[in-house]
C-alpha cells in the first residue's frame, strides 16, 4: 500500500489525518515541521506528501522546494493544506512545485477522496 507523509505542526490535525489514512489502509509517516519531513523523506520512500503551510523551522513552501530538489521526489504528488483566507499561498506553493491543495477545514471523507484520486 502507498505510504503517505503527513506534515503538520498541529498534533491534532496530524493525528486526525494519520488516523483517517491508516484506517483506509495507507502507511502513514508523520513529521511536525519541514525539517523533520525532509529527514523522513530522505530515509524512507514516500508516495505522497501532505503538508501544512504555516509551520515553524521550515514551512510548507520551503519543504516543497526542498523536496523537488531531491531526485526521488521530483514527480511525487505533494498536497498542501491551505485555508481559504490565504489564497496567495496556493500560488506560492504551486510555484514551489506543489501538485495541489486541500482547503481547510476538510473532513476525513474529503481528505480520503482527494488522496484516492491522486494515488489512483
Amino acid at each position, binding site marked *: 500500500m502507498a505510504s503517505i507523509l503527513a506534515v503538520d*505542526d*498541529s*498534533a*491534532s*490535525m496530524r*493525528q*486526525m489525518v494519520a*488516523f*483517517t489514512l491508516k*484506517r*483506509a489502509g495507507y502507511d502513514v509517516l508523520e513529521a511536525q515541521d519541514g525539517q523533520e519531513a525532509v529527514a523522513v523523506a530522505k530515509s524512507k520512500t514516500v508516495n505522497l506528501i501532505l503538508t*501544512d503551510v*504555516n*509551520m*515553524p523551522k521550515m514551512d510548507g513552501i520551503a519543504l516543497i522546494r526542498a523536496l*523537488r530538489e531531491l531526485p526521488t521526489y*521530483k*514527480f*511525487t*504528488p*505533494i498536497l498542501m*493544506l491551505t*485555508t*481559504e*483566507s*490565504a*489564497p496567495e499561498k496556493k*500560488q506560492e506553493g*504551486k510555484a514551489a*512545485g*506543489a*501538485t*495541489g*491543495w*486541500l*482547503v*481547510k*477545514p*476538510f*473532513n*476525513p*471523507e*474529503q481528505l*480520503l*477522496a*482527494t488522496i484516492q*484520486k*491522486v494515488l*489512483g
Partner: protein
Amino acid sequence: MAIDITQFRQVFFEESLEGLDTMESSLLHLDEDASDSEVINTIFRAAHSIKGGSATFGFQELTSFTHVMENLLDEMRAGRRQVTPPAVALLLQAVDCLRGMMLALQDNSAVDQPRVDDLYAQLEALWHAAPDESAPAPAPTVPEAPEASPQGHPRGWHITFQPHLAMLRSGNDPVRMFRELTDMGTLTTRVDMRQLPPLTELDPENCYLAWELTLESVVDERQVRDVFAWVEDECGLTLTPLHAAPVPDTVPVTATPTPAATPPAPTAQAEAAQAAAPERRVNGERRQQAAGADTSSIRVSIDKIDALINTVGELVITQAMLGQLRDGFDVRDLDKLRDGLDQLERNTRELQESVMRIRMLPMSFAFNRFPRLVHDLSQQLGKKAQLTISGEQTELDKTVMEKIGDPLVHLVRNALDHGIEPPAVRLAANKPEAGQIHLHAYHQGGAIVIEVSEDGAGLHTAKIRQKGIERGLISADAELTESEIHDLIFQAGFSTADVISEISGRGVGMDVVRRNIKDLGGTIEVTSSQGHGTTFTIRLPLTLAILEGQLVRVGQDTYIVPLVSISESLQIDPPAMHVVAGQTPLYKLREDYIPIVRLCDLFHLPHDAATSVDSLLVVVEGDGHKLGVVVDELLGQQQVVIKSLETNFKRIEGVSGATILGDGTVALILDISGLMHLAQQHTGLVRRPRRLAPVQQAA
C-alpha cells in the same frame, strides 16, 4: 467509512491552550520589540493553527473569533499594520477570552458570551479601521456560486487540455484528471501528439502531449474546471458546452446537481455542509469529553517513563535472581543472597527516584504567568519593569508547585507595587527607568530555592521599625539588627491599611505568605538594601511525600528531625549551659546564646539517666530562630516516607507526621516550628530578639 474525529478534540484543546500560551508570551515580547517579525510570525502561526483546528473539529465560535485575530496579525506581519500597544493589549485580551472559550467548551460550561461579543466587536472595529493601506479584501472568500447557464444545461463538455511542458514536475498526472472526469460521466479521449519531438530531443520529464476530451454529463462548467484547478496555470484549457439534446425535465435548471464524486476543491455547499455537520454532533459529545477532562492529569516526558520502565526491568531481573536462590538454598549461596539484596536496595531506590521524578514539573509551570502579570500590572501602576526569569527548568513536585503559585504572585505584585519606584523617581535616583524583577530557581541540597528580587527602593528599615513599635510587635527600646527588623514584615498584623493599594492590598499580608510556605515545609527570608532593592528567598522541599531525616533517639523512642532544619549537631559541653531568669535554659553556642529544650521533658518521656553529660544537642532553625534540641543519641540519616497522622488520628503540636522504619516500628517526624511553639509554652520561652540583650549582660 464514517470516521469519528471527535476523539482528537482533547489533543486539539491541549495544543490550542499551549498555542495560546505561546501567543501570550510572544505578544508580551512584541511589546518590547515591535520590529521582530519572527515573533509576529510565531503569534500568527499559533492563531492560524487554532483557527484551522477549530474549523476542522467543528468549533465555529472559535473559528470566527480567531479569524479576525488572524487577519489583524497577518496585516502586522506583512507590515501593513503597525504594532501598537493598544492593539497588543486587545490581542492579549482576546487570547484570554479564547482561553476562556476553550476551557468552557472543554468542560461543557457556559461561555461568557457578552465578553466574547464585546471583544469580537473590538477586534472587528480595529481590523476595519485599517491604519495604513486601505483595508484589504475581507479574507473569507467564499467560492462564487456556480452560474446557471442561460441556455439551459449543456449535455456535456468538449475540453481541450494542453499541459505545459513542465506540468509533470509538479507531480500532476493527467491520468488523475481523466479518472475524475470519468467519475462524472462518459469520457472519450483523443491524444494530440503533434508536439512530440524526435526521440533524440525528447526530455522524458516534459509533457509533450495534449488531449481533446468529450465529457457527456450534466455537470456545470465550474465542476469541470475544479478538476483542473491544480493545474490552472500549467496548461491551456478551453471548455465548450455540448448543446444537442434538450435538457430532460426531471433535472431542475436552478438546482445544482451533486455529482457522485466530490471534486477535490470543496464547493460552497460542501464547505457549508462540512461546517454544519460536526456542529450538530457537538452537544452530545462535549459532555462525554468533559467527564474525561475532569480528572487531574500530569504530562510526563517520555524520558522519565523510559527511565521508570528501565528500572522496573532491572527490578524484575533482581527478583528472578533472588527467586533462583530460594530454590534449594545453600549456605554457600549467602554471598549471592547478599549481592541480590544489595541490588534490590539499589533498584528500590532508583524506582523510588524514578517515580518521584514523574511528579516533578519544571518551574516554568509556575513562572509562566509572570510575564503577563508584570506587563499588566506595570501598565496599571504607570511603572516600567522588565522581568527576567532563570532556572525555569528546575524541577519541583506538582503539589508543591500548585501551592507555591499564590505566594509567588503575591511577592511579584509586591515587588512591582512597593519595590519598583515610578520612572521619574528612578531616573532621579540615577537608576534605569525600567525596574528589574528577577525570578530565579535552583536546587540546593534536597531543596529548591526560589528567589524573587527587584532593584527597587529596598525596605525602609526605620519605617518598618517604627511601625513594628506602633503595632506592638517590638518594644521601643529593642535592639534589633537590620535583618531582624526586615523580618518584622512577616509578622501577623504588620500589613496595615496605609500600605494597602489596589494591587497588593487584597487582605493577604506577608504573614500569610510565610504561613503558606511553612505549610509546605519551606522557609522564606528577605534581604534588602535601601535604595538598591529587595530579595525574597524561598526554600522548599522538593517533594512533600519524602523527607530527608535525621533519626534521633530519646529514651526508647526514635524521632525524625527534618535534615533541612538542622544547622548542626554537637556534644553538649556542660559549662556552656546556662539557666537564667524564667528558667529558660540557654546554651552558649560560640558567641551566641540559643534556647534549648529537652525532647524528653517536652513529650514527657523517660530518658537516659546521664542525660546532661552524654547528651547531644541538635541545633535546628525555623522562623529565623535557632533552638537546641537535647536528644540521647543520633542514629543515622535516611529518607523517610511521610504518613499523615491527621488523616487517621489527629494533629499533634510539634509533630508533622509519622513514618515506618525498616524494623517496622513507627517513628514520629518533628515539626520544627511547632516544636518551637511548644517549647515557648513549656518553658515560657519568648522570642530570642527581645531576650538577647539581657542575656548578653548576664554572660
